[in-house]
């Protein structure tokens, strides 16, 4: 799949933003007044900034508001509802916390649950697609939720949970890579089932001499030879380096900022790979993902 920068930016930033909102919602850290205000500004900038970046991915933006309609069947529509609900509930909770110094815990819990639900709905947009076997597995929502929680814990300054969650994130992402690598083979979809032709099938000629929307969007093949290196880079920046910085630097602002920066870049690389590595079965009609011996 084509790794569109707007979508990678969206899922990285808004994931961390909703993760921070989750921790603020459960009262960790328990802050009021200006300190709370700064936390909420960071959380909303990340969450809303991410959503805004996804908006720019749309090709017909004036119909975007109609996405509220089909929540019964569409995960994208559910994501919109969950995001709006989470942001509104947390705004109420934040306003009471910042301006009245009040922590109304049940509102916070509801906001925290909605924030996690938003991340889950985002992940289900990918996980529901049978046509992209690498995404079509339970490890996809797990990766998104653990990444949001780890980023949220880091941003919320919860050092001990952050350490555990970063380690868990590394494990979850490794599992997603490992199981993802054989998902296409396990899906049973091959050039032979795509064409139902009897024998060994290879592409002889594409429909047109140029690229088209499908090949640009879904038959993306670049830097697969660098996959192992990029995975190591993602793992190091996303989990290993932040854990090391937190253990050495302790709960201070500068090490924490470094850890957050490294983590977000690492998650960005992981999300880039999430798209770049994903094989859409339509590629089989364009000569991609062929067996080595074919």
């Amino acid at each position, binding site marked *: 799949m084509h790794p569109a920068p707007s979508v990678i930016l969206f899922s990285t930033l808004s994931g961390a933003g909703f993760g921070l909102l989750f921790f603020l919602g459960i009262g960790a850290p328990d802050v009021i007044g200006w300190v709370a205000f700064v936390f909420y500004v960071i959380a909303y900038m990340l969450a809303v900034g991410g959503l805004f970046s996804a908006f720019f991915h749309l090709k017909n933006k004036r119909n975007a508001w109609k996405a509220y309609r089909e929540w019964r*069947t569409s995960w994208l529509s559910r994501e919109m509802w969950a995001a709006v609900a989470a942001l509104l509930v947390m705004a109420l909770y934040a306003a009471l916390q910042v301006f009245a110094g009040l922590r109304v815990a049940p509102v916070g819990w509801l906001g925290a649950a909605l924030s996690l639900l938003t991340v889950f709905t985002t992940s289900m947009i990918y996980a529901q697609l*049978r*046509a992209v076997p690498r995404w079509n597995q339970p490890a996809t929502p797990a990766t998104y939720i653990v990444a949001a929680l780890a980023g949220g814990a880091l941003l919320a300054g919860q050092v001990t949970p952050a350490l555990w969650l970063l380690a868990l994130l590394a494990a979850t992402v490794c599992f997603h890579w490992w199981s993802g690598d054989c998902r296409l083979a396990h899906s049973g979809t091959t050039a032979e089932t795509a064409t*139902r*032709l009897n*024998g060994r099938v290879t592409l002889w000629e594409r429909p047109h001499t140029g*690229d088209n*929307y499908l090949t640009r969007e879904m038959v993306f093949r670049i830097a697969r030879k660098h996959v192992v290196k990029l995975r190591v880079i993602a793992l190091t920046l996303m989990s290993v380096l932040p854990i090391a910085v937190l253990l050495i630097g302790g709960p201070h602002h500068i090490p924490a900022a470094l850890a957050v920066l490294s983590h977000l870049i690492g998650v960005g690389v992981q999300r880039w790979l999430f798209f770049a590595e994903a094989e859409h079965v339509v590629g089989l009609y364009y000569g991609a993902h062929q067996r080595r011996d074919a």
Partner: protein
Amino acid sequence: MTALPPEPKVKLGLVIDLDTCVGCHACVIACKGWNTQGTNAPLSDQDPYGDASGTFLNRIHSFQVTPERPGGAAGLPQTVHFPKSCLHCDDAPCVTVCPTGASFKRAEDGIVLVNENDCMGCGLCAWACPYGAREVDEAAGIMKKCTLCVDRIHDETRPEEERQPACVRTCPAGARHFGDVADPDSAVSRLVAERGGVDLMPEQGTRPVNKYLPPRVKDTLQGADIAGEEDVLAPFLAPVTEEPGGFLGWLDRALDRL
């Protein structure tokens, strides 16, 4: 509504004969022509006289098939031309993922359509389709797909023989057939039964309406055994460079050095 309708009583669709198709692309041109000059917005091309990168609702792929003969020996490779457009699936994954309700499947005849006034161009339906039947029109910013020429087939002002999709009407080889696949007595259903018509990617669970008739077994010629090197000159024909340039080239080299 993007919920799928109850099983339609009438399932209009295409039956494509891979034995007869000669790969002339007439259906591709007829489709592009009808859908560009008709009542809808045109199917745009960004560079019509340069690279063929525009929107098409019907494309012909060509495959080489090496049949496996009984006994394990491979037969001679054959060319199969493979027209592909929307299969108007019963369990259309492209419909249920649509957040705006622009995508829908008609209860009366099973045709899958896009309401262009509601589409926001998110592209999720194109991701959901395993067959690559949907393409965003880069000029209009909305999703386009085969309509089964819904503006021809139900048009009472046309003569009877014209009430067929443009691709079917134009096919000079008679490789495309249009009709009600749900009616076991229709001409297309009889053809499917007689020739062993199949669904594409049945394991994807989409239950396509369109069927493909596999090529007939033509001959039993065996390929000659080729021993040794394919060609003594082959090593000299290696590409001069496969390295990307620019920023990507730099990134490529930097990652290589790691």
